[in-house]
């Protein structure tokens, strides 16, 4: 497979991948279809291609992450790109350098793509205005996490063959979840029915305007649902107490064997991880037959390969690659 082959991949046209809200259904499908092709071309991500030979991808993770950073690094290397990792603990951020200066310094070393994670919503957008490199949002605070949204959707599509017409419940801390927002935008555009469910303090009412239904009682919606995506309780992002105790949360919203029994037999259980065992779901559910949690991880590699390839291809079309 050559980079030029991607011309036939489908509509794209983005120099940066900042949010799924800005992608059309056709562009979303371009990513998903390319992930399928890369799956075939690399035997499920295990073999290496030379699609991005000579390209340098910088991982700028201003917030801790092992899983996402590893996944991006591996995806870049599987496509033949070089990667550099940058984490703020080893940086000059502590010396008063601004976040933008840091990124511009890294870029000046000859970087094509920057994969950025930051605790502030909009931080990758800020970078995209200051850098010539393509910027890929790997999670910006409580705003979006586009590749996670894509890999969740891709996992559902691989198991069910479609998205349109399915009912997907996003369960948990919707207010603080970037994964929820990316899933909502992607799923709604591709024709799924989306229900957001969680404690009323963590499910803002106005979110209905994004085209989703709001539910506060998991047991009521469970029989209608094809997939549940169990969002992590974001202890670190909450300011103050949004629910009285973890035990109460687990009682009301935790996925356990009893709830699985009352759900549809073909229910898919997704969780973006890292999971809190015993909170969002019990270990028997996490490791049980309905769970596709580990598929999500391997699909994440394919989705990230697809996104990197599309952004590099776009840069070449626009003649921006040095």
């Amino acid at each position, binding site marked *: 497979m050559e980079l030029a082959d991607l011309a036939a991949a489908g509509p794209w046209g983005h120099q940066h991948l900042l949010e799924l809200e800005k992608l059309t259904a056709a562009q979303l499908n371009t990513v998903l279809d390319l992930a399928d092709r890369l799956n075939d071309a690399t035997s499920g991500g295990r073999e290496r291609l030379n699609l991005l030979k000579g390209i340098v991808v910088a991982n700028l993770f201003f917030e801790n992450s092992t899983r996402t950073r590893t996944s991006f690094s591996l995806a870049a290397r599987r496509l033949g790109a070089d990667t550099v990792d940058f984490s703020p603990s080893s940086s000059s951020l502590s010396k008063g350098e601004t976040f*933008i200066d840091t990124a511009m310094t890294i870029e000046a070393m000859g970087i094509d793509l920057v994969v950025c994670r930051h605790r502030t919503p909009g931080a990758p957008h800020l970078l995209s205005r200051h850098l010539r490199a393509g910027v890929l949002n790997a999670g910006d605070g409580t705003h979006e996490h586009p590749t996670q949204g894509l890999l969740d959707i891709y996992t559902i599509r691989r198991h069910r063959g479609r998205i349109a017409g399915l009912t997907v419940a996003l369960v948990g801390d919707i207010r603080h979840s970037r994964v929820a927002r990316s899933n909502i935008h992607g799923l709604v555009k591709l024709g799924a029915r989306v229900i957001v469910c969680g404690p009323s303090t963590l499910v803002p009412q106005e979110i209905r305007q994004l085209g989703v239904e709001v539910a506060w009682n998991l047991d009521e919606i469970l029989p209608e649902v094809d997939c549940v995506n169990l969002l992590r309780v974001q202890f670190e992002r909450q300011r103050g107490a949004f629910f009285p105790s973890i035990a109460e949360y687990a009682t009301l919203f935790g996925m356990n064997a009893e709830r699985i029994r009352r759900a549809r037999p073909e229910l898919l259980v997704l969780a973006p991880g890292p999971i809190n065992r015993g909170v969002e779901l019990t270990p028997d559910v996490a490791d049980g037959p309905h769970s596709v949690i580990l598929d999500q991880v391997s699909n994440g590699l394919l989705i990230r390969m697809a996104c990197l390839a599309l952004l590099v291809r776009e840069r070449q079309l626009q003649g921006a690659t040095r």
Partner: protein
Amino acid sequence: MNSFLIKGGHVIDPASGRNEIADLLVLNGCIAAITPVGVQGPSVPPQTASVDASGLIISPGFIDLHVSLREPGHEEDECTATGTAAALAGGFTTIAAQSDTLPVVDSRSAAEFIRLQADRARHCRVVPLGAVTKAHRGEELAEIGQLVLGGAVGFSDAGHPVANAEVMRRALEYTRMFNRPILHLAIVPELAEGGVMHEGIQSTRLGLRGIPAAAQDIMTGRDLALAELTGGRIHLMCVSTRDSVNRIRLARLQGLQVTADVTPHHLLLTDDVMQSFDPMFKCTPPLRSRDHIDSLIGGLRDGTITAISSDHQPRALEKKQVELDAAPCGICGLETALSVCVKALIVPGHLSWIQLLHLLTAGPAEILGLDAGTLQIGRPADITLIDPAATWTVDSTQFRSRSRNTPFHNMQLPARIRAAIVDGEIRYQCPQSQLSTGT
């Protein structure tokens, strides 16, 4: 040139209701005569220069109720000389200086330093605001009496709401004996903590922490109750919500001593702009949604809100060009204030020129008890000349202010300040179009 004739301009003096084409004679720095066209005026001394004001509005110099000059302590943002030059470029001939310096203006000497620096700069007039509480901590009253002796015309803890109701009660009681208002930013701190924008569908979409309208409504309600309890004078700065306007309207009908202002940016920009995640739009209170703006305009139209303040808050670029969470609030507002108001209020037909100019002159003068804001014979000539037909593109690199934190950079705006006159001295002229003068 302290004597000259401003000829053929459209004189709008909201305090007296004058609204006609006239000549205005300045003699020895004071307004000597205003003569409508076709009327025989007093004889003009020979060799008196004349300024052609045809097509221009002759307004009393504008007055701004709260401007951060940042000196001493934050000179990276602004200093008195640059802030007062920016004021003139915005048509303001008198500004009240906020107390948010470092140290804050909670002592007589600090107030006197503000006046001293303003005298040295010789741009616009500056009257200091004193702090309500020591170091803006909201705990103990500042030396309010000493501050009055130092020239303070009102009291404010600037961006720090006086959260403790008991402290605010005592402050309102204590300031009664000096007949000076307390200018308060009415926001419940706990509801605003960590927030970067208005709470609503946009904040939900963007994943940004919102500040609900109730944060202002609740504190406004508290302040009004305390004004009723104490008989003190409360002025609510930067009103931004529908319910605040409604509560203030009701309180004024009940005869409470309450006044309010609104900023130009809260009248023009909605929370939709936060989609750009640009910290230039971050301010306190946050930019609200359209329904709130409509209520603010209603409050201006029916006299609930009697002043517009630029709420000038200069911030050095390096502080603003950071992530949204880390960026400070504030907009550098003096130099765009009039044009933004014209775009938000006059172009859509919400207010007439005389109504708008009232909010920038006589309205704020009355709130601070200043003998200014009107074109009165025998009084010092503080005058602003406006070209209402001009359009211009904001270029923040040309600001007189030391800071550039404006959301209006590169925006095309209507109406332009052509000149600002203080004490009969033309201290500012628009560099792109100088006045034509003769004798």
